[in-house]
């Protein structure tokens, strides 16, 4: 059976009304019945009493004069009363004096009653009364009344009351059902709305049709509650958001756990550290992937301890990253949960380590560098001198006190004033570092030169409050400087003399050199004219213009022609060189296509390959244009290619031209020839040098080609170099500016 508490309000209301009605009716019924019964009894007693009184007053004389017949006559008057069924009179001697019995009650006898009173027994009331005359007891009267008629009347009354009771209950029940609707209707709405709110969390719902009684008040209170809850909810969610933002903004990790070691929440920074989201943590046990083993151990220990608060540095590897966290744990709510705030001090620790390292290093360096440190606390007139500082002046640690006077008093008297002024001026307006040299008195009385480099620290108002400096003993350097100065003074005189002599000789030499070049320039020209005639006419002879020649003649004429050509080349080269050296070379600067130039060179050089197993390769892109002296560039490349062909019997000779990263044109001439020994490479670009003189027969040449090349490259603002090894071929590389400018040429000069 349901408890009353769990019944619906509807049922409760009905039950309560029924209960109240029942209780009232039952009490009323009981009272009515009791009252009725009492009335019946009282009236019976009254009836008996008055009857007895009457009998007594009428029977006194019969007793006084011992006349039972008279007494019985008196008693017989009772027959008018239906309910009085027996009456007895005993005389003073306790003998039955007179007796009355209604028809049907004759068999009933009464034992003598000695005391006055009323007794109830088995549906009868018996009254006993003394018959008295004045003080004298004459006898005793007893009258018995049958209550059955009254009893029956009472039972009829009870039936009526029960009937009224039932009618009352039924009416109350019907009324209760009607009334409860008025009360439970609004309550049911309230209940439904409450459930709806609980289910949907929609605090915007409201109770409508509000009456002005207590239930209506409840409804409006409910509405107010909802309004406030809605407001609170908004405030709460705002506060929660703000809290989350604050938690996420805090430069540390925050987590809070209950005493079962389950996460109640974490901030975003903590979740990010593990590559998780804050929601992933809620409800998880401590041991899950979002906690480091060290943290787990720490938290367990903390919860097992009686401490309310704990600090600890924890080193852990998280996501393969080493971390050092300073964790602060605090228990709350009777140790039901705890908050842990972690500050990532990995960097700080690293910084501490490196500071410590650098401090140690610095100390070592200072020690090793013989540098003494001093530190003036200007405001407090305190000073610090490092052990080395004291050692420089020959003192032990304890021999110099930490006052600025210790320094001042050791200044050289000659410069004391100057140094202190310098020092004060700098402090008044510190700019950069103060670097100065001065003397300090050594323990042995001599003065030591020190090199002092100091810096003032200024506060926000620009006032110097501290000055730090380092001194270095430069006494030996000062001494050496003095000696050097003296030597220097002597040397300078000698050097000036020699320089003057050399300058004179130089001027003479330059003049001579110029004259030589001029001579060569003009002489070369004169020499070329007859040679051209020789070559020209030898050619005519070889072509058979003057008649057929036999083989021997042809062979000898070829020799003549080749020798003449060689001589011409030699003269041309000498001419060029002399022009260059006489600074008489004229450059003809134009823009031209490099591809065309290289093709031209390949074409002109190809006859030289005759009879050799050689491939001649030119490699340059089509669209490269160059602004320079075309003839000279061609001369350089031609020279290098003909050299390469000369020393290569098989394989290939290639020329490559391209822009290098510096936007310069890079020419590379590569061969697969005999190569050049390392030793020979050194003198390669010197004039009149033919390598391996023994082989000069096989590789004839002027010996001026590479010298000329290097000079020309120089003039055009470039650079040449080579790379080779004996038997492994050679590579000549030179770079030239893409566009020649006078400036480059002049700078070179």
């Amino acid at each position, binding site marked *: 059976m349901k408890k009353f508490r769990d019944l619906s309000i509807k049922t409760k209301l009905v039950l309560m009304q029924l209960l109240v009605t029942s209780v009232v009716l039952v009490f009323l019924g009981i009272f009515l019945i009791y009252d009725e019964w009492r009335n019946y009894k009282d009236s019976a007693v009254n009836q008996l009493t008055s009857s007895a009184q009457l009998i007594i007053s009428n029977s*006194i*004389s*019969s007793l*006084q*004069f*011992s*006349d039972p017949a*008279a007494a019985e006559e008196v008693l017989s008057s009772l027959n008018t009363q239906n309910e009085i069924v027996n009456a007895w009179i005993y*005389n*003073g*001697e306790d003998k039955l004096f007179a007796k009355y019995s209604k028809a049907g009650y004759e068999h009933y006898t009464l034992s003598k009653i000695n005391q006055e009173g009323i007794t109830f027994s088995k549906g009868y009331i018996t009254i006993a009364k003394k018959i008295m*005359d004045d003080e*004298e*007891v*004459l006898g005793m009267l007893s009258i018995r009344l049958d209550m059955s008629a009254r009893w029956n009347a009472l039972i009829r009354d009870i039936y009526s009351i029960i009937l009224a009771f039932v009618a009352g209950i039924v009416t109350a029940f019907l009324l209760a059902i009607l009334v409860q609707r008025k009360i439970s209707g609004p309550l049911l709405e309230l209940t439904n709305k409450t459930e709806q709110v609980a289910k949907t969390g929609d605090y915007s719902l409201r109770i409508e049709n509000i009456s002005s009684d207590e239930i209506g008040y409840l409804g409006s209170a409910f509405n107010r509650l909802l309004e406030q809850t809605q407001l609170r909810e908004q405030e709460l969610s705002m506060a929660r958001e703000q809290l989350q933002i604050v938690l996420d903004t805090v430069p540390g990790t925050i987590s809070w756990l209950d005493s079962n070691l389950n996460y109640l929440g974490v901030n975003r920074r903590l979740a990010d550290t593990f590559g998780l989201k804050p929601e992933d943590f809620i409800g998880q046990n401590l041991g899950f992937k979002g906690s480091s083993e060290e943290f787990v151990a720490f938290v367990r220990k903390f919860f097992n301890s009686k401490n309310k608060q704990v600090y600890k540095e924890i080193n852990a590897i998280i996501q393969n990253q080493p971390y050092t966290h300073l964790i602060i744990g605090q228990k709350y709510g009777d140790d039901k949960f705890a908050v842990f705030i972690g500050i990532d001090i990995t960097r700080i620790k690293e910084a501490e380590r490196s500071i410590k390292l650098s401090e140690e290093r610095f100390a070592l360096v200072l020690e090793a560098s013989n540098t003494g440190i001093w530190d003036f606390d200007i405001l407090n007139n305190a000073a610090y001198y490092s052990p080395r500082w004291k050692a420089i002046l020959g003192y032990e640690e304890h021999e110099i006190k930490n006052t600025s006077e210790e320094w001042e008093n050791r200044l050289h008297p000659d410069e004391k004033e100057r140094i202190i002024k310098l020092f004060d001026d700098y402090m008044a307006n510190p700019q950069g570092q103060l670097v100065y040299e001065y003397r300090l008195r050594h323990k042995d009385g001599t003065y030591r030169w020190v090199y002092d480099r100091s810096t003032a620290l200024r506060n926000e108002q620009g006032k110097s409050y501290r000055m730090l400096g380092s001194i270095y003993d430069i006494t030996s350097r000062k001494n050496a400087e003095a000696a050097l100065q003296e030597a220097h003074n002597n040397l300078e005189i000698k050097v000036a003399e020699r320089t003057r002599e050399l300058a004179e000789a130089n001027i003479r030499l330059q003049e001579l050199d110029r004259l030589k070049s001029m001579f060569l320039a003009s002489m070369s020209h004169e020499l070329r004219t007859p040679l051209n005639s020789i070559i020209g006419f030898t050619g005519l002879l070889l072509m058979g213009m003057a008649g057929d020649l036999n083989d021997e003649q042809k062979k000898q004429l070829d020799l003549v022609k080749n020798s003449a050509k060689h001589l011409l080349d030699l003269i041309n080269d000498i001419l060029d060189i002399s022009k260059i050296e006489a600074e008489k070379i004229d450059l003809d600067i134009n823009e031209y296509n490099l591809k065309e130039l290289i093709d031209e060179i390949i074409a002109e050089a190809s006859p030289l390959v005759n009879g050799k197993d050689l491939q001649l390769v030119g490699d340059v892109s089509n669209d490269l244009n160059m602004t320079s002296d075309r003839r000279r560039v061609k001369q350089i490349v031609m020279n290098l290619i003909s050299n390469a062909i000369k020393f290569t019997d098989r394989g290939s000779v290639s020329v490559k031209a391209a822009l290098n990263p510096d936007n310069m044109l890079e020419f590379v001439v590569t061969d697969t020839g005999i190569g050049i020994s390392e030793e020979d490479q050194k003198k390669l670009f010197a004039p009149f040098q033919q390598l391996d003189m023994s082989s000069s027969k096989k590789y004839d040449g002027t010996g001026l080609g590479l010298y000329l090349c290097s000079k020309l490259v120089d003039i055009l603002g470039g650079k040449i170099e080579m790379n080779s090894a004996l038997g492994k071929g050679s590579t000549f590389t030179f770079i030239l500016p893409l566009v020649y400018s006078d400036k480059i040429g002049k700078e070179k000069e």
Partner: protein
Amino acid sequence: MTFNLMVCAEDHSEVSQNDLVKSVFIYNFTKYIHWPSDDTSDVFNIGIFGENDINIPLREIARKKTVSGRKIQIKQYNSPEDIDHCHILFVPSGVKEMIPDILGEVKNKSILTVSDADNFSEQGGMITFILIEGKIKFEINIASLEQAKLTAGSELLKLAILVDENK
């Protein structure tokens, strides 16, 4: 009756049951008889004519009882001339020869005359004890009562056997 015990307690010689009943009856008569209101005596006198055993229980009653607050005094008369002021006069049957003289003496006096002699009522006596079926009853002569200006209560009359000498 209630005096039984009291009487038995006395050391006197045996009193007959009848005398006892009679003496009680005599006392009880005082409750139903009304004497004229001019009687102002403060003693209630009961007279006994001649020697008779009844004086023992009567004296006993007189010792213990009062009549309307008045003490009871027992007087004994030996001749009719002796009879003076009294309220009740008992005339025993032993002196029945003297009844006419006695009644003549008390005539016109408010004295209740009581006797156990036969024909007392016929001779003008007021109350006469008679024995019926072994029980003592009494006759009342209402005319005599009225003559003596005495009245009897209805209760008493109801129990008495009424005698009318005029009949």
